[in-house]
């Protein structure tokens, strides 16, 4: 059972990653919501933050223009 859950979560993470890399905003929002439902906001936002930091400045418009600002906003709000 846990194995199935782990696989399902990982698949959603991979899908989210793919949507970000393909700059597909609609799918990105969809998978982020699904991931959030599966593992909670902390995990899903943490995953997006890691993804953003690892790929910042590499020419991906969603990461550079959108996600970087969102992650900065989260940081500021926390601060």
């Amino acid at each position, binding site marked *: 059972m*846990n*194995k199935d*859950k*782990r*696989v399902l*979560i*990982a*698949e959603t*993470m*991979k899908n989210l990653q793919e949507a970000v890399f393909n700059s597909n905003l609609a799918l990105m929002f969809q998978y982020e919501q699904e991931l959030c439902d599966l*593992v*909670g906001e*902390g*995990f899903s936002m*943490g*995953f997006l933050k*890691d993804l953003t930091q690892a790929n910042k400045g590499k020419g991906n418009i969603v990461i550079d223009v959108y996600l970087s600002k969102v992650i900065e906003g989260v940081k500021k709000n926390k601060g």
Partner: protein
Amino acid sequence: MSLNKAFSEEEITRLFSGEMVVKNGSNGEKIGFFAGGSFLDDTKIEKFNEQLKGEKKMSKKVNWERINELIEKALNDGGLDKAEIDELKDLLRRAEEERKQKKTEKESLSERIDLSMTLVLGKKALEQAEKRFFESLPLKERLKVLKEKANKVEKSLSKVNAKMKHLEKEREERELQEFYEQYAKKFNHKL
């Protein structure tokens, strides 16, 4: 040993006529036969049946002489027809089984070499006979045989493919789990 040898004619007559059936004193249920001074219950009868089966098996002993005849015909005497090819195939299969079963038996070295050589030669003869037979067939029949062979190969390939797909799925699942574990640890997520 057979039933005939184990009992006298009279005993067998009594046994099979059922005239000496022994019944359980309390419930009247049949518990066996009493024949010629021996009590035979189901276990003993079962044992004799097994012995009979064993004798039948022994009678199907592989005919090595026939194998040699067929080898000779296949290699030096114009080849074999379909029935003979099937016969040789069956004889070789049984001969191999017999060799495996008799591995523990004491045989002289020359005897062992002779039989092994016959088996090897038999396989070669069978191969050659099948080839000759195939070549003697009209084109339409040849295509039919080839199609059957192709179907067999296709079947075994699809089995291999299914196994490969299964292994691939397992590998993917393992990788996905590892991917999850890596982040689960970082974000302290437990299922």
